[in-house]
């Protein structure tokens, strides 16, 4: 047995090329045992490809992948202690639900009786016992999804790969399944590698998130970390909503950078690594960390005028224009407290950036 500090999956400089096209650029990342790990990125960024490399359906063009410390390149998919929940579920249409779930167990060498018994337990776990004798086509999308999950979990893999398993479900069911999945991961202690292009899903479910774009790892970290301290413009923009302002650095003192925004506005923020006086960079500020007020706050506020208020249920989104400068989005909670900070279109207001909320990005 491996000790708990050995990563479940260790990807070392792994690259994948299809002819001239590079789907995964030399990538290194370590996925810990018992972790709920999420691969997040826009469509076509290589999430499925990376998953298929781990499962064994794609060769690794360069570099290596280790599973609990051992190199797996030579192992065919059926010899890897890894199971997959496919994007389209891929339930065997000619088999009943019970046969589907017991398939892996039988292939592992369990007797049919034992396999069916364990499969029955798995179906109980996902609350589908009454459908055991149906065919996949006779189930709803959400039920099929749970069968796929039960089928992949039944052989007790050490790593479970989930390729956008919730993308076909409607919002309500998806939320319910998110909680169920998270639960299941905690209970079983199996390492989950979860693929999604939905940043909210990634933030709510993961222990750690790897943000990918165009076959490259952009940032790796805990959800809060990735959300609050994006490393570059792509991550800031892809995860959550943000205001990206082009700024010129006019001064750096005490690790604080003075940023000049078009229209003569000044914003102070923590100088990140690589920032120097005189350069231009981008400032990312989350809309919920901007405050509107009728009078300027003492820390310094920016003058702006309100363009429009958009009601989004829990929040009110205010679009405004900095005097002589770019547009900004501000989000205020839809509550009695928040109502005091909402102004009618056309009103002149002051915008305050919460302390520590602005983040300087140089690429």
């Amino acid at each position, binding site marked *: 047995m491996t000790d708990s500090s050995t990563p479940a999956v260790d990807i070392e400089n792994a690259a994948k090329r299809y002819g001239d096209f590079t789907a995964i650029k030399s990538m290194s990342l370590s996925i810990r045992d018992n972790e709920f790990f999420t691969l997040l990125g826009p469509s076509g960024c290589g999430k499925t490809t990376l998953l298929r490399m781990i499962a064994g359906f794609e060769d690794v063009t360069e570099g290596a992948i280790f599973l609990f410390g051992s190199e797996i390149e030579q192992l065919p998919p*059926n010899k890897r202690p890894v199971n997959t929940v496919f*994007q*389209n579920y891929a339930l*065997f249409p000619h088999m009943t639900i019970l046969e589907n779930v017991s*398939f892996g167990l039988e*292939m592992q060498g369990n007797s049919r009786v034992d396999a069916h018994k364990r499969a029955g337990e798995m179906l109980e776990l996902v609350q589908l016992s009454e459908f055991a004798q149906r*065919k996949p*086509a006779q189930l709803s999308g959400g039920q099929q999804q749970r069968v796929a999950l039960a089928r992949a979990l039944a052989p007790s893999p050490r790593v479970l790969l989930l390729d956008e398993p919730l993308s076909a479900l409607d919002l309500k069911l998806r939320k319910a399944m998110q909680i169920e999945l998270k639960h299941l991961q905690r209970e079983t202690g199996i390492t989950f590698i979860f693929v999604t292009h939905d940043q909210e899903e990634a933030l709510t479910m993961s222990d750690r998130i790897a943000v990918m774009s165009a076959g490259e790892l952009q940032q790796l970290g805990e959800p809060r970390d990735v959300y609050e301290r994006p490393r570059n413009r792509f991550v800031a923009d892809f995860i959550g909503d943000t205001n990206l302002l082009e700024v010129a650095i006019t001064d750096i003192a005490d690790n604080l950078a003075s940023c000049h925004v078009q229209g003569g506005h000044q914003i102070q923020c923590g100088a990140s690594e690589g920032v120097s006086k005189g350069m231009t960079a981008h400032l990312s500020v989350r809309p919920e960390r901007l405050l509107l007020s009728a009078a300027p706050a003492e820390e310094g506020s920016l003058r702006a005028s309100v363009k429009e208020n958009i009601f989004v249920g829990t929040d009110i989104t205010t679009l405004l224009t900095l005097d002589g400068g770019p547009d900004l989005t501000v989000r205020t909670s839809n509550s009695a407290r928040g109502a005091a900070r909402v102004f009618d279109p056309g009103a002149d207001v002051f915008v305050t950036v919460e302390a520590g909320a602005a983040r300087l990005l140089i690429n």
Partner: protein
Amino acid sequence: MSAKTDVKAYRGFFTVTLICLFVLYAPLIVVTVYSFNDSLSITVWQGVSLRWYADVFTGVESAKFKTAAFNSFSIALIAATVSTLIAIASATALVRAGRFRLRLPSMGLIMLPIMVPEIVLAVATLIFFNSIGFTRGYLTILVAHISFCIPFAFLPIQARMQGIEDTYEQAAMDLYASRAQAFRRVLLPLMVPGIISGFLLAFIVSLDDFIITNFVKGAGVETLPTAIFGSVKQGIKPNIMAISTMLLAVSVIFVAVSYLAAKWDNTKSHLKTDPAR
């Protein structure tokens, strides 16, 4: 569909339908009806009887027809079985082996017997057998039938296979099945409707073949089509119509079975899903 845009609303729809049906089925109906004619003549109706059916089994030509029927059905059965097995293997290779350089030429080679005029194939087969000194007889017919049945068995199997996502096999292998197990437990069962349909098609094509059989058969070895042709050359007797009607019945049964096989397809319409990537 609204009644106004329905094809039935087109002028002349009914007439065209009648003409088509008439052209397609009139000869068959005539043969079927007259096979029950109680007359020596094939054109004068003299009342209903089964005498020509009895004649097929007990008449002067009955021995000849029995042997021919045995030859026809045994050859069709073996040829359909063997060609279906070959077709399963080729379809698996051509649909599942990804892109390889000789894929298109291979496909062309398999389909060739359908494209080439049958008479050319017949002559070629005959010359081939002669040149290797293969004595003409039952075996030459069988080998020739196997070879020209392959594309007919191949087509439905290939069509079926193309509709099966390869994620099913991947899912099977992901669940610890070896390649062979994934094929046997997942791919093969999913292909069954295509296989049945391919087998039936090959069977009918073999049963029905005349030109190639006539060229490669040895003296004295007859199949039903060549036996019927032999009889007809001495003048059409009503017993030929009885045999033809029985062959027609066999065909109808096969078509019906093939239709039921497609219906029995236990996977429903779940095969076409979005690719996983």
